[in-house]
């Protein structure tokens, strides 16, 4: 039996008028086939105009609190294990993304919780001192009044197989009342369309305010047809992929790129005593295992300070032990030959280092579904082959790490830090200057909190235009009011 599911969300387009292409995930009886839409440029343009119009007529007439309530209702449905949409997601996402089913279930739960009403309000409060500016003119501190307008049409180009990731930017787009059209990531083409359908069910007037499309990377003329209609384009992916999008945009289109990132962790000697070291290693292992290090916030390397009761090498051993434990609970997905080759290459390099560098060690045999490469000497930041390959590097002082990561500022985002409070703030200052934009605790690296500033940006503020009524206009208007009194003084 094959499992076939249709992806995307195309209001106003009849399914039979659209061409569909099949993307296959996995092999054998568990294979999932996802049909993705291939639109003509004309269809794309018509869709874009429809979404823009509906957003103006419907979405922009709702208050931001009403939008929060609608999203909250949709998220509540997805958090309900009995809901058919949730069941569809849970049924197909493991095969599509390749992640363990239990990992997907737990991951979805903790991810979706960040989109409930209280968290969404916090999200708004993070960017807007007074979120009512999204609804109407509000007094500005400097005088006059100010109101925030989202783009009429916001296009999202999503990437990656981390389940449900498109939700971040899609919800941002909704909160600023934009008409939203998202391009499905080929690696996880299911969730965004499913969410759009659910949203239309929860609040039918929104049905035409968003659309979910697809095109083959670097292909055809449908993408430019969409970009030509957009006010703002958000793109995720490799520098190359993001650059491809940028080149297709009219110069007046606002462009917000989110490139690939490289996460790392730091463990201070304060966290390296007999009780705390194993606990920290357990949390670090969770960060490694969750989404197989495919997230922008996933760690590829832990810098561990010498001088604690537990040494860096022992920490590496604890980490190895925890990875072995987690393999029993969340087995690593079956690897494609290319992934296996990438891991083998990384392992070989680590193995050769053990022959060349004193003290270097590779933990985890060829048959283990994880590997820890330990280095006794400082190493610059570098990605691993992911899929539970992690480096542990001993450093004299955590301050030494700054110079090791700074050359890669463009790729920095999340640092997981286990340290005492004074150290935490000092290191965060140094790392912030070096390019890091998010400091999280080990164990929380892959679960950014609601309202986080993705890559150090303002998720909502970056999307809006502030429209100001200056005091002069307000004062001048006073004179033209029917009830204006001439100053007879």
């Amino acid at each position, binding site marked *: 039996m094959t499992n076939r599911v249709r992806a995307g969300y195309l209001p106003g387009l009849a399914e039979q008028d659209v061409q569909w292409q099949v993307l296959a995930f996995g092999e054998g009886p568990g294979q999932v086939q996802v049909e993705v839409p291939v639109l003509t440029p004309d269809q794309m343009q018509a869709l874009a105009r429809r979404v823009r119009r509906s957003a103006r007529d419907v979405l922009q007439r709702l208050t931001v609190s009403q939008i929060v309530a609608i999203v909250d209702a949709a998220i509540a449905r997805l958090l309900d294990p009995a809901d058919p949409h949730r069941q569809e997601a849970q049924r197909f996402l493991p095969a599509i993304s390749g992640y363990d089913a239990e990992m997907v279930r737990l991951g979805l739960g903790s991810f979706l919780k960040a989109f409930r009403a209280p968290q969404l309000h916090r999200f708004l409060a993070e960017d807007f001192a007074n979120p009512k500016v999204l609804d109407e003119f509000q007094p500005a501190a400097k005088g006059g009044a100010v109101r925030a307008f989202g783009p009429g049409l916001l296009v999202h180009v999503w990437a990656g197989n981390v389940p449900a990731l498109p939700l971040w930017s899609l919800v941002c787009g909704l909160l600023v009342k934009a008409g939203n059209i998202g391009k499905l990531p080929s690696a996880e083409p299911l969730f965004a369309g499913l969410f759009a359908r659910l949203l239309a069910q929860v609040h039918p007037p929104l049905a035409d305010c968003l659309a979910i499309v697809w095109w083959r990377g670097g292909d055809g003329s449908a993408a430019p047809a969409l970009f030509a209609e957009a006010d703002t384009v958000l793109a995720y992916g490799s520098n190359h992929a993001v650059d491809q999008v940028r080149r297709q945009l009219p110069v007046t289109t606002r462009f917000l790129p989110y490139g690939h990132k490289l996460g790392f962790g730091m463990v201070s000697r304060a966290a390296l005593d007999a009780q705390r070291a194993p606990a920290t290693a357990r949390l670090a292992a969770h960060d490694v295992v969750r989404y197989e290090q495919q997230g922008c916030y996933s760690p590829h390397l832990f810098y561990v300070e010498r001088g604690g009761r537990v040494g860096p090498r022992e920490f590496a051993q604890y980490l190895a032990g925890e990875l072995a434990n987690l393999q029993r609970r969340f087995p690593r997905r079956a690897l494609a030959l*290319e992934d296996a080759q990438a891991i083998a290459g990384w392992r070989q390099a680590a193995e050769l280092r053990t022959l*060349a560098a004193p003290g270097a060690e590779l933990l985890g045999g060829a048959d283990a579904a994880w590997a820890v490469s330990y280095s006794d000497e400082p190493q610059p930041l570098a990605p691993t082959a992911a899929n539970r390959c992690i480096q542990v590097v001993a450093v004299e002082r955590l301050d030494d790490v700054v110079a090791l990561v700074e050359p890669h500022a463009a790729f920095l985002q999340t640092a997981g830090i286990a340290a005492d409070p004074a150290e935490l703030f000092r290191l965060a200052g140094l790392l912030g200057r070096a390019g890091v934009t998010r400091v999280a605790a080990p164990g929380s690296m892959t679960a950014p909190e609601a309202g986080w500033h993705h890559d150090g940006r303002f998720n909502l503020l970056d999307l809006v235009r502030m429209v100001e009524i200056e005091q002069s206009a307000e004062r001048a208007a006073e004179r033209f009011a029917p009830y204006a009194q001439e100053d007879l003084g």
Partner: protein
Amino acid sequence: MDASQSAPALVESLLAFIAQDGCSDDAFDAMALRLFAHQHAHNEPFRRFCQGRGATPRQVRSWRDIPAVPINGFKDLTLSCVPPAGCQRVFMTSGTTRGEVKGRNWHPDLAVWNASFRGNFARRFMQGAPRIRMGILFPDEPAMPNSSLAHYLQYALQEFGAAGSAHYVGANGLDVAGVTEALSGAERSGEPFALLGASYSFVHLMDGLRSAGRSFRLPPGSRILDTGGYKKQSRDVDFDEFYDALAAAFGVPRERCINMYGMTELSSQFYDDGNAVVPSLKSGPHWIRSRLVDPLTGLQVAKGERGILVHCDLANYNSVTTILTEDVGVERDGGFLLLGRAQGAQAKGCSLAVEEFLKAAA
């Protein structure tokens, strides 16, 4: 006994082995084990590599048991049974994938390498012809003294090239006018002609000919040898397109377009019997054997499944006989299909992939 004392007898046996018509499985194993013992005894980094895998001459019973050294080992380790300073030649990889670090294969002298080349080339490419006029689309040996391909092509020209054979890649790049003249001459004379070179040079040459509006019908018996693949260096073309284009540009039927698969890290080459159908079946001479493995476990994959190629090349007597490549293949009766290099796994998520990182760091 140091390697310089043991080597002459070993080299002599090897040359005799290569000169044979073929060999039994047992004879191959016997020679492979003798070489393994030699390399284990005389190359310290290799011995440590084997220790890491628990492989000693006592435990290794067949060529399949010899630990396969990843080709990166040629970058990071000195894999030579004699001090490199005493070696007549060192062939180096072009080092495109890992910055400045190049893989190195040391050769005390080229007697075995050349012997391995000669008989194999005569059978698989010359196919009985004693000499043929050659156009080489690659720099000559003095220009690239550390390139095993430059040596291969220079030696081919020396041993099998008829009068008028020449190199057409020099300091100024590909000499399209020179090749054009040689090809026209061959057309007029009716004498068979052979074009040999890197696959990407053929792509450049065909681009040049196309813009000049030229194509040729080389005389019967003409042939083409390409090697090295064309990904990354040149336009991305698929195998079918490439051999169709060769046939159209030079009038050489696809079954006479032969692809050679060789590596700096080896001392022997594989060939196919033409590329009428792609991917073509590759096979080597009796002194090299290959198997397909799971890159992580090193275990052989089921016949017909994709795996990574491991080669055991007995002519590689001074470095290591058995190497783990990064090439994907499938075993078939009589050889294997070469499916190309295992592409670095693409980033599936939004975490930075190694390839992109290296590109940014370069």
